[in-house]
């Protein structure tokens, strides 16, 4: 069987040394091809005695398998080497920038409106809307602000032009979101829970005032809602909105024509190091106005004040956005400076949710 051993050694050496696919194929034909050395020996098996065949047969088969495996392994090795060689040549500068993808932003006012909505929706408040050009009845009279009321002057109202032949009082640009209270109650009656975020207008323009800004109105009417419920709702709102474990609110007596009793609401905060922290410290900051809806307002909206009572509140959306996100200047909200939009804006998929947290 030395001949077989020789044969095997010769071919294995040849396969190991083969430099390319063609040399390998040549070796395969020479060994295992139709007229290859191993094939010829297989043919000789027929002329052997059964005894001889019994030993020579398996030996030949083993040789054939071994050479076949060696050929396949070498083929894979050659392919791998060739691929390695190609990949080495395929070099790109990975420090070049990626292809540009546009990155849009959501305005802080919109983001905060969605935050408000998420919180109040959980407490059962729907979102009500109303027109921004409003009649003076909805904006004032229905809210217990009669024409001669000083508050009506203090509102710095924008009036719409009125045709000379139109005897009606001019419409106004709503000075607050409170008229939506009347419209929502008139449409829906009691009980009701709504918030009404939106644009409002006042004739005021300086560092901290803009002739247009955003307010959110809250209204809850039921059989037995009290100011204590109002306080709880506002505490819950502030805790959730400012994303702090605890808030302290302080109610201060005040006056709004459309609520009675009325309260300004202060929140405990700290300004240590010029950084606002809600819920700690010894300072108080006014954040909103609120109160129990005035019986006359309920009546104006067709709700019986002997049967129903509840609370209302209003706060500046731009302002709480500024407080929460550290935005310094109100007027910049409406200037559309790209640098500002990109810096203070929110990503398209930054959807405020209660389960995921309102902000990142």
């Amino acid at each position, binding site marked *: 069987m030395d001949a077989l051993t020789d044969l095997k050694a010769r071919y294995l050496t040849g396969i190991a040394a083969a430099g390319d696919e063609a040399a390998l194929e040549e070796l395969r034909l020479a060994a295992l091809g139709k007229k290859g050395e191993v094939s010829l020996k297989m043919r000789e098996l027929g002329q052997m005695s059964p005894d001889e065949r019994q030993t020579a047969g398996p030996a030949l088969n083993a040789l054939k398998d071994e050479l076949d495996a060696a050929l396949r392994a070498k083929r894979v090795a050659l392919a791998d080497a060739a691929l390695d060689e190609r990949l080495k040549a395929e070099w790109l500068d990975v420090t070049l*920038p990626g*292809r*540009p993808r*546009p990155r*849009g*932003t*959501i*305005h802080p006012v*919109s983001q905060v409106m969605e935050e408000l909505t998420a919180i109040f*929706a959980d407490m*059962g*408040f729907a*979102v009500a809307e109303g*027109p*921004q*050009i409003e009649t003076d009845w909805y904006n004032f009279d229905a809210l217990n602000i009669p024409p*001669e*009321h*000083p508050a009506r*002057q203090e509102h710095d109202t*924008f009036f*719409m032009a*009125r*045709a000379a032949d139109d005897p009606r009082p001019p*419409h106004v*640009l709503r000075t607050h979101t409170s008229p939506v209270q009347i419209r929502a109650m008139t449409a829906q009656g009691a009980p009701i829970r709504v918030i009404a975020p939106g644009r409002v*207008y006042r004739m005021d*323009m300086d560092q901290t005032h803009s002739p*247009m800004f955003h307010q959110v109105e809250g209204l*809850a009417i*039921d059989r*037995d809602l*009290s*100011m*204590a*419920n109002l*306080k*709880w*709702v*506002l*505490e819950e709102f502030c805790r959730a909105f400012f994303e702090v474990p605890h808030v302290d609110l302080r*109610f*201060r*007596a*005040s*006056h709004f*024509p459309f609520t009675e*009793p009325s*309260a*300004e609401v202060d929140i405990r905060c700290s300004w240590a190091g010029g950084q606002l922290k809600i819920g700690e410290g010894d300072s108080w900051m006014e954040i909103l106005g609120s109160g*129990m809806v*005035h*019986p006359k307002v309920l009546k104006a909206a067709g709700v019986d004040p002997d049967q129903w009572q509840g609370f209302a509140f209003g706060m500046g959306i731009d302002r709480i956005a500024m407080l929460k996100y550290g935005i310094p200047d109100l007027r910049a909200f*409406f200037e*559309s400076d*790209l*640098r500002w*939009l990109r810096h203070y804006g929110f990503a*398209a*998929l930054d959807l405020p949710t209660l389960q995921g947290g309102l902000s990142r």
Partner: protein
Amino acid sequence: MKFTLSWLKDHLETEAPLGDILYALTDLGLEVEEVVDPADRLGAFRICRVIEAVQHPNADRLRVCRVETFPDGPGGRSEEVQVVCGAPNARTGLVGVFAPAGTHVPGTGVDLKPGLIRGVESNGMLCSERELELSDNHDGIIDLPADAPLGVRFIDWRGLNDPMIYIKITPNRPDALGVRGIARDLAARGLGTLKPQQIQPVAGAFPSPVSVQIDPALKEKGCPLFAGRVIRGVKNGPSPLWLQARLKAIGLRPISALVDITNFFTFDQNRPLHVFDVAKVAGGALRIHPAAGGETLLALDGKTYTFQPGMMAISDAEQAESLAGVMGGEHSGCTDATTEVFLESAYWDPITVATTGRALKINSDARYRFERGVDPAFTLPGLEAATRMILDLCGGEASDVVMDGAVPDTRRAYRLDTARVQSLVGMDIPADAQRKTLVALGFTLEGDMAFPPSWRPDVLGEADLVEEVARVASLTKLVGRPMPRARAGVPGPILTPLQQREKAARRTLAALGYNECVTYSFIDGAAAALFGGGQDALRVENPISSEMTHMRPDLLPGLLQAAARNQARGFADMALFEVGPAFHGGEPGEQHLQAAGLLVGATAARDPFGSRRPADLYDAKADAEAVLAALGAPAKMQITRKVAGWWHPGRSGQMALGPNVMATFGEVHPKVLKALDVKGPAMAFTIMVANVPLPKVKTPTRPALALSGLQAVERDFAFVVDARVEALTLLNAAQGADKALIERVAVFDQFSGDKAEAQMGPGKKSLAISVRLQPTDKTLTDEEIEAVSAKIVEKVAKATGGILRG
């Protein structure tokens, strides 16, 4: 409303520290805006004695003083300090005012530091009045009587330690526009006792030589009561220092004793008064009447006002002498020469005064008070109290009181339901405490009926009683109570479909790379007119600036102006959007929600891959389609060229379902860009969010997915057509060739322009489409495919005149 602590203590017996008073004021609804406590500025300056003053060794005009100071106050240890002083009156034995090193000197703005002056140590300062901002006197240092108590704070000794308190008064609380009303609130809160006020009428010594008469037209409403009396033999001149100091402390300029007295009662009792110089009142009679219109008055503010018909005037026999309840006239005003005055105390109708004040744009202390409501019952007591003060300060004798009209009846009562505080506010306050509070505020209780005092015109119902009780008890004590869910369990969705869409449009646009803007709802008339607006119905009558005169008819002008501002800042490429209201009329509700996008410049910055290209119409179209898809618009819609005038007529279109226009997209008209200073071109779209139809049936279930196991076949065709044949016409024709078999057709190439015309003839272009055939029951044979292909070619030829490109 400003007052000082000592003024408050005229009416309030209290030992409460300033801090407690301030807290209580704010908590009671009298919000403290500002406190100026002189001790903050001048508390470190104490009375000292110069033990010895000797000539400075190195300077002729300076003296070196050994000063005995008392850093711990009177009776405390004394400490000798050396001070170099340049004042000519610095001398041995002088009792003056010392500021130690470390003190901020308000008059010079300097923080004192120990130092060497011409080689001699100096450790503080002997001060002049100017350095303490007490006067302009800087001729020498303060020189006090020898018996002035050493170590005492100078402000205490001089009576200057009177904190000024500035509170914001809500319009419902006219009573708090007088110091007495503020004191009453604090007393009700328990911060002291309201001092009793006894006003003794002054007996008249002679009949009033001036008579008064209210025109019948005003008696009912405008002026129910007008009273006054003459005081003769008065000597006008500067008022006493205590009165001047009070007025100065609250920011008023002392004028003369007579005027200062009327101002004093304005602030002390919320009782505005007026004094006429009798010598100037012609005919010995004052008439209160509605103006005929056209009369003029030179008022005390030096301006001349013209009465409009119906405004209330006080006139003598010759002319109008006063704008009733608003401002007196210069002609009959008091001067130092005045010896005989007529003192007026009247009750004016708030609405009439407010209307007059507003029309004439006069903001006086009198108007401010009368329009909020003064106490009508105090009209006569106020007159008596002021008479007394005039007699005290100016001498003279008073006539009988003359009056017309009567004190208006303000008596009314509301039921006090002590359980209401619990149900409405949620505070538990014992019934007797509630009653005590109301009594302290001046209410009269008869059984369970509460009669508000005459100075509280704001109390008009039961809820007001609750408010008073809760306010005085302090809302700070209110403890939050959970509000039960309106419905137990998981809250349902609350957004309306339109609100959902507004949100979807906004998020989609941000995801597409647009930056959201919030621009003003009002724009300038010219810009509005460019976009079909600018009508008078949309005009703001009193705009705050010429750039904000009209409600916007469309969102694009605001976005274009934003683009122009950004271009001016050096940003050439931008994608801006806004979702918000546009206004199509001036009536409430004539507004509609738009989502608008604007693309200016290139799609990307320059990069190694050549990503940068100018944004074009098809970018705007794709983005508009993406938003419409997010809003649930059907995939198939008509595209027409019927666009408004602010669009490029050849490069813009509308997406519509029949007459219902959902969106417009395209290039903005170059003229519009020029007018708005935008360097173009600019691509844009406007989506009418509410015009996208809502689904007829709302169900989360999707239609079943039909997947064919059979191989689809893709075939390409290129047609030569006229250059203005629209792709959609061609696609629709191809699609129509076999509606069952053709799953999809799409344009994959367009060959147009000069080269195309050179090949295919003038006015021609080539459009290449791919058609996907999806068999449903058996694999297609070549013959079947050929048959469909032929049909496609035939349909396209019929619809567009196009022929298969060879």
